């Protein structure tokens, strides 16, 4: 059961990371086209709009994978002197706090979409080429949910198996 859930979570994690990576490639391309175009007097219309909104995909696209591979920085100054249970407790607390934070980001970002768009009938967009904020906020919602789910799963796994399921990258 846990293994199957993990398998599915992994697929979602890879998918969001893929979106982030595509976003990064688009970002490089757009800025280069804009710079070269501007040199010849024809900048790319809305380049900054794309850059700004694309950043949201890059930043949140990598969140779940970052957690999966233990990429978040923690202070290991006292790790050597800690008993095993304390390390386990720290891992467990991290997974829970992380899950709550990302669930919180997802929930309130969704709230802001709902409030502005559906209750107040306001569609905010970028200034030059009208990219709707809500699409990118929506991406933040989805990617944060994936991250929160992955972290919850990790907390469950810590209880069931005692193992934190992170790949070793972040461990010193």
């Amino acid at each position, binding site marked *: 059961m846990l293994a199957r859930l993990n398998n599915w979570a992994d697929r979602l994690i890879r998918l969001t990371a893929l979106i982030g990576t595509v976003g*990064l490639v688009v970002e490089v391309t757009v800025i280069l086209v804009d710079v070269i175009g501007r040199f010849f007097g024809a900048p790319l219309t809305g380049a900054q709009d794309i850059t700004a909104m694309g950043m*949201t995909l890059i930043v949140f696209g990598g969140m779940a*994978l970052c957690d999966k591979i233990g990429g978040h920085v923690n202070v290991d100054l006292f790790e050597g002197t*800690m008993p095993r249970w304390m390390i386990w407790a720290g891992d467990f607390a991290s997974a829970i706090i992380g899950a709550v934070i990302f669930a919180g980001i997802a929930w309130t970002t969704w709230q802001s979409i709902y409030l502005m768009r559906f209750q107040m009938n306001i569609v905010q967009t970028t200034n030059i080429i009208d990219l709707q904020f809500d699409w990118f906020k929506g991406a933040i919602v989805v990617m944060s949910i994936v991250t929160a789910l992955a972290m919850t799963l990790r907390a469950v796994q810590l209880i069931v198996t005692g193992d934190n399921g992170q790949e070793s990258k972040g461990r*010193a």
Partner: protein
Amino acid sequence: MSGEMIGLIGLISLFVLLGLRIPVAFAMFAVGFVGVSILNSPQAALSQLASDSFSLAAKVELVVVPLFILMGNVATETGMSRKLYDAAYAWIGSIRGGLASATVVACGGFAALSGSSVASALTIGRVSLSEMKRFEYDDRLSTGVVAAGGTLGILIPPSTGFVIYALLTQESIGRLFLAGVLPGLLLLSMFILTILVITWFKPAMGPKGPSTTFTEKMRSTGGAAPILLVIVLTIGGIYTGIFSPVEASAVGAGLVILFGTLMGNLNFAKFWKAAQDSVVTTATVMLILISAYMIKTFLALSHIPQWLGTYLEGLAIPVIGVLAIMLAIYLILGCFLEGFAMMVLSMPIFFPVVQQLGIDPIWFGVLVVLTLEMGLISPPVGLNVFIVKSVAPDVSLAKMFRGVAPFWFAMLVTLILLVAFPQIALILPNTMIQ
């Protein structure tokens, strides 16, 4: 309970959470969130979580984070970084700690194109750390050098630190930039001196290499030509107005991708791995930056800065004493806060005191930026150290903080020199701008 008290308890809780190995960003989110919930409201804290996440993620200036990491990753994947360090090794590898000194110089050079310490530490760190390891440099020395060297980004112009200071205090950006030049070079020299001292006492931390012939030197320089060309084109493009420092990150990344492909060292699989690694590192770094905002709001709501300001105004001691206390406060706050957050919080309160005491505002700006740099590498919340950790996950943070300590003292000495001899900062702006 007073806001100040809640603020203090919050900072202590942050300390405890960090000690328990809760990831830095999560700990800052948790403390900031609870603090804002108490001092404002839970709904406000929740909403801020969303609005800060979106507005910081959509901040164009921060695109340098993923793009400079991408540049560093591709340069490493294609062996360009390796060739750059081969060249540096051929030229100065025979000196103890030579590569570490070369890395400090690289940080200084990068500082001339980037206004951000984070970007400097990320890019140089990605390029240099594995290379120094290859030549058997100690992790403590190499990570310490990158974390400390990276902070040169906000002292050597262009500098976002000076820009924010100027906008907050209505001082001249041009004068501040000029005032940062000599202190920046002084600090750079102090870092090199520190490396020489460290490797003098502990030669194994930066082992001497064999001496090389002139032909070998030239051949290795030729090998590094593509990456050197990228650097020249990127800096040149900024200073000739072809692109902005932000766009330079995309140009730099584009050029290493282009050269790597042309030389046959970059295929799609390698490129994709480099790009995906960049996205993951970006997540680490940006989450820390977003969480630092939460802490900033918490401290603003706690009114701790105002409380400190009132305390300072009431002091009946000489100017130099007030200055020393202010800088000490920056050092302490710097242990918890990200530098710019600190400036925004404190300057409206401290600057009137500075003006009242007749302290030269340009000189004070340099002192503040230098103190901020020290805060960036001091535990427990040393942003630049965390940044280096994000590109060197195998080195423990404890090692890094130990490695960076001597450089922190070099900065302290530089700070004392600047307090004793304000001319170091003021001579350029005073002679070049009337």
